[in-house]
C-alpha cells in the first residue's frame, strides 16, 4: 500500500550556483536532487526513497540545451548537452540525429511522450539503472561528464559514473552538470532495444554500437549493452575481436557470441538470465549491422 502524503521534506528551487552552493553547505544530510522527477517522484511516493531536502534543479536554466563546438586546430568538435535537457529535446534535435544518431534513437524509445517531455538526460544517468536507455549510446559515443559540487568541478568518462544498479560514484553534494560528446565525422552509430512491449517498456536488453571503417576494415568500434550486468557495460572483448577485421555479418555474429561471454546478466522479474544471454548475441549483431548501414 502506498502512502501518498506527509513525508515532510523541505523543497527548494535554487536559481543560481551560489544559491545552490549555500543550500548544500547548510544542509547536513538527506539532500536529494530533483530533475524531471520521473524516477524520483515515483520512488518518493512508493517509499523506495526518502529525503529531508529536495533540491529542484529546474531553476538552473543554463542546465538545459544542446550546443555544438566546431572542430579547431588540434581539437575535435564536440556536442555539449546540459544535464537537464529533456529526453524529448534529444529525440528531436537535428544535430544529434546527424552526428550521434544512437542517442536520439534511444531517446525516442524511452518511456512515453509525457515522460520524455519531463525526463532529463542527467536524471537517466544518475538514476543508474542498468538498462537506462541513454547509457549505452553515451558509452559508444565516448561521452564524458562534467560534475559540479560546492567544492569544485571535475570531468569523468561516462563509464566511471556507475557503481552498480541504482548506485553512482557521485558525492552526496555532487551533480552532473554537462554531458559532452566528442565528434567523429566518419562514424556510424545505432541503438536497439528489446522489451516485451513495443512501447513504454524498460528494456530487457538494450544495445548501442559505433563503427568506423578504413579501407573496408573496422578502424574503430564501440559496443555497449544495458541489462547485461550490474551497470551499463562496454563489450571490450567483442570490440577487440572486431578491430581490423572486415565488417561482415559473420564477424558481427561472432562478436555477439563474445559479448554474451563477457556479460553477466541477472535474472529479474523482467527477464531471466538465460533469456538475456540468449538474446545478447542477436542484439549485438543486429545493432552492429544497423550502425554499418548508417556509414556511407
Amino acid at each position, binding site marked *: *500500500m*502506498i*502512502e*501518498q*502524503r*506527509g513525508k515532510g521534506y523541505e523543497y527548494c528551487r535554487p536559481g543560481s550556483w551560489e544559491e545552490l552552493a549555500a543550500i548544500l553547505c547548510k544542509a547536513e544530510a538527506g539532500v536529494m536532487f530533483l530533475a524531471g522527477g520521473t524516477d524520483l517522484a515515483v520512488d518518493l511516493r512508493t517509499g523506495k526513497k526518502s529525503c529531508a531536502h529536495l533540491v529542484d534543479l529546474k531553476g538552473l536554466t543554463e542546465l538545459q540545451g544542446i550546443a555544438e563546438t566546431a572542430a579547431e586546430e588540434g581539437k575535435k568538435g564536440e556536442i555539449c548537452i546540459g544535464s537537464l535537457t529533456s529526453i524529448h529535446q534529444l529525440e528531436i534535435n537535428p544535430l544529434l540525429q546527424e552526428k550521434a544518431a544512437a542517442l536520439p534513437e534511444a531517446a525516442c524509445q524511452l518511456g512515453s511522450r509525457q515522460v520524455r517531455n519531463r525526463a532529463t538526460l542527467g536524471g537517466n544517468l544518475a538514476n543508474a539503472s542498468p538498462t537506462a536507455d541513454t547509457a549505452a549510446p553515451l558509452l559508444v559515443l565516448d561521452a564524458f561528464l562534467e560534475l559540479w559540487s560546492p567544492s569544485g568541478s571535475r570531468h569523468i568518462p561516462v563509464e566511471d559514473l556507475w557503481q552498480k544498479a541504482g548506485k553512482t560514484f557521485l558525492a552526496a553534494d555532487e551533480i552532473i552538470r554537462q554531458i559532452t560528446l566528442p565528434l567523429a565525422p566518419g562514424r556510424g552509430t545505432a541503438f536497439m532495444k*528489446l522489451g*516485451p*512491449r*513495443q*512501447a*513504454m*517498456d*524498460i528494456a*530487457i536488453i538494450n544495445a548501442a554500437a559505433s563503427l568506423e571503417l578504413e579501407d573496408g576494415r573496422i578502424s574503430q568500434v564501440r559496443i555497449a549493452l544495458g541489462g547485461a550486468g550490474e551497470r551499463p557495460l562496454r563489450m571490450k572483448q567483442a570490440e577487440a575481436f572486431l578491430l581490423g577485421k572486415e565488417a561482415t555479418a559473420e564477424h558481427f555474429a561472432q562478436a555477439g557470441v563474445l559479448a554474451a561471454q563477457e556479460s553477466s546478466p541477472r535474472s529479474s*522479474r*523482467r*527477464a*531471466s538470465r*538465460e*533469456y538475456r544471454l*540468449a*538474446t545478447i548475441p*542477436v*542484439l549485438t549483431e*543486429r545493432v552492429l549491422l544497423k550502425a554499418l548501414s548508417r556509414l556511407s
Partner: protein
Amino acid sequence: MTYKHEGVGEAPLRIDGDIKVLGKAEYVQDLEYANLLEAAVLTSPYASAKILAIDVSGVWQVEGVKAVVTGRDVDGLYGTTVQDRPVLARDRVRYAGEPVAAVAAINKAAAMLALTKIRVEYEETIAVFDPEEAAGMKEDKKTVPLLHENLMDYEREITAMPVAGSNICSHFKLRKGDVEKAFSEADFVLEEEYEVPRNHHCCIEPYGVVAQMEREGTLHIWTCNQSPYVLQRNLAALFGLSWNQVRVTIPTLGGGFGSKIYPSLEPLVVALAQKTDHRPVRLLLSREEEFLRITNHGCKIKIKSGVKEGKVTARQMAAYWDTGAYADCGPLVARNSGFTFAGPYKIDNVKLDAYSVYTNLPVATAFRGYGIPHVTWAYELHTDRLAEKAGIDPLQFRLDNVIQTGDISHTGEEMQAVGMKGCLEAVAEAAGWQPGQRPAPVDLGNGRYRSLGVACSWKGSMRHYGSSATVRIMEEGSVEVNVSNVDMGQGSSTIFAQMVAEETGIPLSKIRVQHPDTFITPYDRTTSASRGTFHAGTAVMEAAKDAWRQIQEYGAQVFGCRPEEVKSSEGKVLNPKTGEGLSIGKLINQAVMGGIDIIGKGHSRMKGGTGLDKETGQGANPTSFWMYAADIAEVETDTRTGELKVLKIYAASDVGKAINPVNCRQQIEGGVTMGLGIGLMEEMLFDEKGRLLNGNFHDYKIPTAVDVPEIIPLLVEVPHPLGPYGAKGLGEAPVGPAAPAVANAVYQVTGIAVRRSPLRPENLKLSWQKGKEAELRD
C-alpha cells in the same frame, strides 16, 4: 431543428460522448459529498494464516479517525454462487491481500497512517496455489490443506456443485456419446495440456465505492458496479435490510470487463459507514490494490481428441479453474465455459469435467468471455495440431468440422441461426486465404518470418434472466429511458435510445437514458454475458412499443381514426386524415387536457429455457443465444529473439443484426486488443508465498497503441429469431480467437508448440530452444 431519425441500423454519435470528450462525465472518483470520510484497508501479508489477535486500539492516536472495523464487527457471509466469504477475514486469512481491517478518517493520509497502528498477530499455515494440486488430482501430492473446511455447510446456488472434503467448490460434468469407443475407432488420437495463467481486467478506472447510511434509514451506495440489483440483494441480506431500503446508484463506469459484476469491496465500505453517524465513506483503490481486489481465473486444460476421416469424432477435456480463496462466480465460469468447452464443432462423443478449485490466491471472477479466452486457447491450438496430423489445411479442417444450424450441440440443443461458418468464410476471404491452400511462411531474412494463422470460437450467453424497462415520454416531447443495464463503455445507452427512436420516431437528441439506480430504474439481472442488447434491449424495445401504442390510442381519439392508422413522422404524430403532424405534447393536451406522462413498460421474458443435468450436462436450451467469432492473424515472428509483431487481425463476429455498426466494430477492435494482450503479454506473477509481484502498470503490461495491429472488423449477420431486430450479443466473443490465431501463425513458422500463454518473447525463445533440444535428443 432538423429532424434526424437515428434508429436501428444507423450509427449516431454516442449519446454520452459529448460529456465524455468534454471531461464532464462523473465517475465515482469525481463525485462530491459533504462531510466525506476516506477509507483505507489493511490486508493480509500471508496467503494462508491463522489470525491469533488483532489490536486496533492504536488507530485512535491518529487525529481524524472516525471508524475502524475488523472481521469481528461484521457477521454473515456472502458470495455469488457459494456464500463462503466474510466481509473481513475472521479467524484466518486465505490469500495475501485479503482485507483484515479497515479505517475511515477525515482524509486518506490519516486513514493510511491509522493502518500502521493496527497490530495483527498471524500464524502462517500451509498454502496451496496450483489448482490441479489443490483439487487433489496430482498423483504425487494427494494431501492438500483445505481452504474451506465447512464447504458443504455453506449456502449455495444450484449451479455450484461442490465435492465434499475437497477444495473443489464445483465440478461440472458433460457426457455425450461414448468417447472411449470413438477413440478406439479413430484414425488417430491426440492428447495435450494447455495453460492460461491469471491475468487482470485492468479497467483504466480503479475501483471506487461510496456508502452512506442515510438519516432516513436507507443505505445509499454509489459504486462502479455492473450489476446494481445483484449488489442490492447481497447487501440487503448481509445487513438485514429489505430490498427497498438499499439504494445502489451507478455513475459513469470506466470499463468493467467482468471485474465489476459481483459485490467485492462494497460490503466492507458499508460496514464502515454503519459506524460513522451518517457520514458518507469513500474507498478509492490505488492501482496496486485494484490488482488484488479481483482477478481473472488461471486455468489448466487437458484435451484429448480422436479424428476419423478428417472429422473430430470424440473429445475429452478436463479443466482446473483456479478460482482463488473464495468461489465468487467460479462455479458458473466452470459451468458456462463448460458447456461450450469442446469448441464450435459438431462432435458426437464428448466427455468434459470442469473443476472450480479454491487456491490461496486472490479471488478470481468473471472476465470478458467467462472462461472463453482460456478454453479457446486450448481447443484452437489443439485444432491446428489435429489438422496438421490429419494433413488438412487448418482453415479447411475447421470448415469441415464446425457446428451449423440444425446440428445438435454437445448438450443436446438443436442449434439455430449459427454464423460460425460465415465468420470463417468472411475472414478467409478478407485475408485472401483459399480454404485448402494456406500460404507458406515468407522468409524476411535474419530469422524473421511472416505467416497466417486462423482460430474461431463460440460463446453461449447465459440462462435467461429477466430485464425490465420503462420509457417515459413527457408532454414536452422529451423521453427518459429507465433501464438498469450499465453502460460501461460498450455503448448500450446509445443502442437503447436508438431503439426508442426506432419505435416512436422521436429524435435521438430528445432521449435520455438514466444512470442505473435501484430506487429509480427497474430490475435487470446483470450487465454481463453480452446480454444487454438481447435482454435489456428487448425490454426497452417492448417499453417503447408500449408507449407508442398509447400514443396511437390518443391519436385515434383525437383524430377519430383507428389506432394503427396513426403514424409518426419527423418526431410528430401524423393525423391520417389531414396528413398534418401534431407534437406529442399537443396530442396529449388535446386528448386528456395534458398533465400526464406516457409510461411504456417492457420486459424480456423468455420461454423454454432449461438447466443442465447435474450428471450429464445435458439440456436442450441452456443459453438464450450463442455468439460466434473467427480471426485470421498475420504475424511476423522473430525466431532469434522470440519477438512477435502482429501485423493484421481480420476479425469476424456474427452479431445477428448490427443495431449500431460503429458500436459493433468498437466491440470487435477492443475485444481483439484485449485478447491479444492476455495471449501475448499479460500474466500476473506471484512469488512462492503467493504474493503478487507485478501489481502495477509498470510491470504488468497491457497493449499500448503501438502494440495493436491493424484490426479489420467484419460483421456477419445471421439474425436470431428471438433477439430484438434479430440482434445477438457481441461483447465477449471477439476476445477468444485473436491470440490463438497468432499462436497458430507462429507455430506454422517454428513447428514447436508453445502451450502456455502468454507468448512473451522470453517464453517463446526458451520454449523453442528446449523444443529444439528435445527434437535433437529424440
